[in-house]
């Protein structure tokens, strides 16, 4: 795979460096030491920036989750409240119900996205006239803002301006003039699901396409000589060799789906009632609308733990093993 090719070009680079060197430039260990010092200096900005936007919120959330901090009662003291915020989050705030919704949404979405994404990747992998057009057509939905895909599908599902109702009505008059968003729970989810998948399947397809492209051709030739059918070589060659790419796509999509927010905010605002209130939306509501940073902080910590568990699986499967 591509990683191996890089390894090969990367190794002689580092191996052949510190040998012959004359003149004013520092030699051997001295050079390495100055290099290293400069290296830390060059890496510092990225670390400072990323720590500021991740470690700081993490610590602050952790602190807040054990304290009382609500701007609505700004004068109340920021007392230590123990696990009270977590208890509130898990009981009255409806975090568990949101977790269930989010997990079901995630499971359905990633299975669907990966299956359709794989089919798309196989299409894109083929050499044919109009491949560029197909690739551009697939990339554009991925590249536009999530809000655009959400607004766009919100418009499409609106019986007064969209085409969904118009076409469904042509097939089956009884289906026409259906209100999709915020009228029925199931239809709201369908609309969210369509908007989300329409935007994200292309990403899965691109990742899987890259995976397909690094499978050597002679493996297929060998399978063909052995008399394997298309399905057999797909099952025995493509799928196993696609495993790394599949895992990357799965893990990215899993995390994105667990944290889905924009689409829900724009399309339903969590409604009807609270039936599409996913984890991220509930957290947003506690932070920005209720300005309750204690309970919100507790929710964030639980969200981070959830994301960490998933990422840990990823890092474990794909530990960067290049330089060390």
């Amino acid at each position: 795979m591509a990683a191996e090719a890089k390894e090969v070009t990367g190794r002689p680079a580092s191996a052949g460096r510190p040998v012959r060197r004359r003149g004013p430039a520092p030699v051997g260990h001295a050079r390495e030491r100055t290099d290293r010092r400069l290296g830390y200096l060059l890496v510092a900005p990225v670390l400072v920036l990323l720590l500021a936007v991740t470690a700081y919120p993490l610590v602050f959330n952790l602190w807040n989750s054990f304290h009382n901090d609500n701007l609505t009662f700004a004068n109340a003291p920021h007392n230590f409240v123990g696990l009270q915020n977590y208890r509130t989050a898990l009981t009255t705030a409806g975090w568990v119900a949101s977790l269930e919704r989010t997990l079901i949404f995630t499971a359905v979405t990633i299975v669907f996205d990966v299956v359709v994404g794989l089919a798309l990747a196989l299409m894109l992998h083929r050499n044919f006239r109009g491949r560029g057009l197909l690739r551009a057509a697939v990339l554009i939905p991925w590249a536009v803002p999530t809000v655009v895909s959400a607004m766009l599908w919100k418009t499409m599902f609106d019986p007064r301006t969209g085409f969904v109702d118009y076409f469904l009505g042509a097939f089956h008059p009884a289906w026409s003039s259906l209100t999709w968003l915020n009228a029925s729970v199931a239809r709201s989810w369908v609309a969210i699901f369509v908007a989300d998948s329409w935007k994200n399947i292309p990403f899965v397809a691109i990742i899987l396409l890259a995976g397909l492209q690094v499978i050597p051709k002679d493996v297929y030739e060998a399978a063909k000589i052995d008399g394997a059918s298309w399905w057999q070589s797909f099952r025995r060659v493509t799928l196993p060799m696609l495993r790394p790419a599949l895992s990357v796509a799965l893990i990215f999509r899993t995390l994105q789906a667990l944290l889905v927010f924009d689409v829900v905010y724009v399309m339903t605002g969590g409604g009807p009632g609270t039936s599409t209130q996913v984890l991220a939306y509930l957290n947003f509501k506690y932070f920005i609308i209720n300005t309750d940073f204690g309970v919100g902080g507790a929710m964030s910590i639980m969200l981070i733990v959830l994301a960490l568990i998933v990422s840990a699986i990823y890092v474990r499967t794909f530990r960067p093993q290049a330089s060390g």
Partner: protein
Amino acid sequence: MSSVTATATSVPRTVSRRRWDTGKVIRETLFYLAVVVVVLVALFPFYWILRTSLLSNYQVSQGVGGANGVIPSHLSFSAWENVFTQDGFLTPLRNSLIVALACTAVTVVVASIAGYALARLKIRGVAAILGFILLAGFFPVLAMIGPLFLLMRHLDLLDNIYPLIIIYTVYTLPISTWLLKNFFEQIPAELEDAALTDGATRLQVLRKVVIPVAVPGVFTAAILSFILAWNDFTFAVSFLTSLNKFTAPLAITTYGESQFQVFYNLIDAAVVIISIPIALIVLFAQRRIVSGLTAGSFR
């Protein structure tokens, strides 16, 4: 589809000239049908918003159907005129451009030097640093909202677009740093070694030798960063409150809604405008985007 690999490697034309293979014709037809379906599903919604944006207010209020079907009988540019003459969308558009471009600039500089150091300078703990950068990219955005809100409130920076430039680096830096680190690793080190042997310092080497060679990689990182920064909604909706401070994605969610009617033609004109820069980038740089996405996510 069984001939996928065969047509890719052998010469298909001579085969098809020799005999008429019905199965193959059916497979080919089905394949192109599938391509057409995919292109339609991907692009038809865009046609539809373009269509709606070209309707008059009266046509929009009439609903879909009749003279306002898939191809409307009349077109009107009133919505587009409104978008470009009123201030409701132009200011957010400018805000978005400022933030996305500035964030891209910061990202490119910071990720390039870090990527170079990680690829070449033999610092200790490279694996740990890369692991942290990767994890930061997976950090739940919603979990940052609360603490950053309080911090910015304390510093009186709420409802201000400039802090977003720094905050958006959480989207752009992880993928850009990884991508550029991989890119620098692929550049043969002989060039640098020659310059170093001639007595150049590392920084001179970086500026005069490495950066010029690295332009394609930097460009890819810049394109991805711009798209990611342009697309944010979560931070904008949490921190911005006044209309003239909105970014474009935030603005379209409230745009075109009056007390009495939702002006879908206005909304859709705005949606078209906000998608145009992205669509252009995709059309001109699709290969780069694809290679960047995969280089940043593999390994």
